[in-house]
């Protein structure tokens, strides 16, 4: 028992664990960015799960198809194979990415029509869309492999890893960052990109206005629907990239029809952080720390489902902690207000501003 525990701990303190965490964090981060952008467009992006699975399946299948087409009949180990494999892989992931984006964006467009144009109920449409996407992906996979829904690994090319020699020489982290996938860097860039888009551009301002105060935006002569639609397009692109990362970022890409609810985890992370970008990114990383456990402990004699349960339990716990914090904050505010009313405490100076209104009034007096 003790030996098993120490082995499990050893597995956690390994490079492998961090690498797996990063891999899971990649697609979760993309999805979370997409969900935040959608939230800013005023849409509860429940259908992110559908978009994610659609783009993942499309990316994987097109990747495998193109790769098989380029390789032709070349057998593994022959000179011809060695010659072709590089080109096949490059074509594979490029086309996979292209198709993943196209299919994911198409799904988002359909969803946008329902949500923004037809104005159907966000949640019910999201649920329907997810069911539709789930079954469509399952059908596609089962039509290709009629027996079971799992395609053997090695049929699709994974996304290339970025190797930086200078980083690879660093003792501990070198092993990790020397072979991190390109998409992981892209995901981190997407977070910064989303921050820039939302907070530093005119479009971001309009998007936030569309969510918070549509009437003001109409007053300036800008269509709310169009702004929200554009925001949703960005969101769809981010989630589609998440789908591509989901199916292609690992070193041996596989795709299974079993539902795991990845996008729901990202949604939980965002909703437990009130839609804050940086907080959500950290929450996503913490979720993927838990999620990676099921990968590295897969060889140990512990039931895999129980370890996977941890992930969902962590998500539920996150939601609960968030609610608890909110409650505490509300109570504290009420208590402070009561003290102010009862005259025990002078009215508060506003933090973070040098010259608050309260301050300047005093100066005038």
């Amino acid at each position, binding site marked *: 028992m003790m030996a098993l525990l120490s082995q499990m701990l050893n597995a956690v303190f390994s490079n492998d664990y961090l690498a797996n965490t990063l891999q899971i964090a990649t697609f979760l981060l993309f999805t979370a960015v997409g969900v935040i952008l959608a939230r800013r467009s005023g849409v509860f992006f429940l259908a992110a799960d559908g978009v994610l699975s659609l783009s993942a399946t499309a990316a994987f299948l097109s990747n495998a198809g193109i790769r098989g087409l380029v390789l032709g009949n070349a057998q593994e180990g022959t000179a011809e194979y060695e010659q072709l494999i590089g080109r096949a892989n490059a074509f594979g992931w490029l086309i996979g990415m292209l198709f993943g984006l196209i299919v994911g964006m198409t799904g988002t467009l359909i969803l946008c029509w329902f949500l923004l*144009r037809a104005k159907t109920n966000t949640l019910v449409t999201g649920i329907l869309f997810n069911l539709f996407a789930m079954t469509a992906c399952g059908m596609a996979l089962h039509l290709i492999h009629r027996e079971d829904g799992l395609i053997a690994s090695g049929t699709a090319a994974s996304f290339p890893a970025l190797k930086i020699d200078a980083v690879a020489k660093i003792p501990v982290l070198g092993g990790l960052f020397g072979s991190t996938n390109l998409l992981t860097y892209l995901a981190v860039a997407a977070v910064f990109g989303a921050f820039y888009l939302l907070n530093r551009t005119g479009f971001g301002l309009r998007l936030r206005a569309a969510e918070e105060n549509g009437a003001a935006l109409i007053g300036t002569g800008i269509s709310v629907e169009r702004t929200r639609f554009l925001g949703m397009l960005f969101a769809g692109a981010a989630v589609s990239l998440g789908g591509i990362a989901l199916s292609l970022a690992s070193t041996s890409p596989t795709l299974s029809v079993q*539902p795991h609810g990845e996008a729901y985890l990202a949604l939980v992370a965002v909703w437990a952080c*009130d839609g804050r970008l940086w907080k959500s990114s950290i929450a996503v990383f913490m979720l993927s720390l838990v999620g990676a456990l099921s990968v590295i402990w897969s060889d140990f004699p512990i039931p895999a489902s129980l370890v996977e349960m941890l992930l969902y339990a962590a998500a539920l716990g996150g939601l609960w902690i968030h609610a608890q914090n909110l409650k505490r904050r509300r109570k504290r505010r009420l208590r402070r207000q009561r003290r102010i009313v009862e005259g025990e405490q002078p009215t508060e100076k506003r933090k973070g501003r040098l010259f608050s209104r309260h301050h300047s009034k005093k100066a005038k007096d």
Partner: protein
Amino acid sequence: MNKVIDKIPPRVQRKLTAGFIGLFVCLLAILIFEDHRIEAMKAFFLTPLSSIEEIGALLSYLTPMVFVALATTIIFQCRRYSLSMIGSFMLSASLVTGFLLRGDEQPGWYLIPAALLISIVVGAGVAGIPAVLSIRRRVNITLSSLVLDYLILQLTSFILQNYMRDPSLGQTASFEIPQRLFLLEILPGTGIRLGFLFAAAAVALLYLLLYRGRLGYEIRSVGASESLAGYVGLSYGKTVLKAQLLAGALAGFGGAVEMMGIQPRYVWDGSFPTVALLGILAAVVVEYHPLWIPVCCLFFGYLWRGGMALNAYSGFPKEVALFAAAITALVLFALRDLELKGASRSKTEKASVPSAGEPVSKELKPEAKPRKRRNQPSKGKQQKTHSAPESAKTDAKMPQRESQPMSDPLEKAELESQQNAADYHDGGEEGGEK
């Protein structure tokens, strides 16, 4: 022909069209992807109706679906979009299987009612968790129930693999529940069991409860507008909790009915049961009306049995039924919108001067529309034909209705809540955002 079509109300027309499109999608998939088309189509379309046994199987297979659909109806009428019925269904099915397999030596008169009771308690318990979180802590109920579903998915597959698995089978499935523990067969030879009667009774009772009973009125008024329900003295939290617990109990009961006679092995290892998902879709398609649920379930059950027959024949993916059902529901949503658009357009055409410049009107339309509608005085026909607010609940905006006079406070409140687009913050985020 046209006269006949005109007699059918547009709501039903839409549903029929959507259903036909769903069937058409199945047909198309089979035509494209199957080699022996005629045989495959025979297997899909005719097998479910080919014999008395098959029809009996179809009817008994749709029983759990009806239960899940009823659960969905209650929850969605209350407008707290929880998806805990999947979790309720799975966990109660799993625990009932475990209970019946473990207590094999006990007499049947004790086991069967105890199993049914367990299913009800477990189902209500599962549905209660997100409900309580939502009411007490204002956690988003959709998200928490979804995550709980996935947690239960892993939990049930853990129970299945470690405590119930039958090693002699190729696929992962539990031991078979002995036949003496099945529910009573009411029509010998067809496989229709007592669960069918239970389902029929549940449909009738739920209709009475929702449209004739006090609790149903409470549920619907909370669904229409939380604040109005508060003003008239209803406790929002209590009503939501009651609705969720009732729904969970129904879904859990459906799980027990499924295990006791219809599907004697627990087979869902790592995937959601199709029957539960079809039940949700059925409730959405009939716009949460209990009396229409059996009809829609019959259609979906037919598709499902057909898909299974086709799967046995040629290995065609079983998902085709769920796919067609999802398409049906989505198409229905789209049709409803087109119809509403068409109605409002014809009204505005009559009202407005036709010589308005084209490009200008195009530019102005999307922005001017919502304002115009809201301030529009009621004109045209002053009839008030509709009585129940249950129809077309899922529409976010209904221009048809807004132009009509509103005397029913419930209806008025419903429209208001729709205009506020409260769905985005569903689960009560607004309380703590600042």
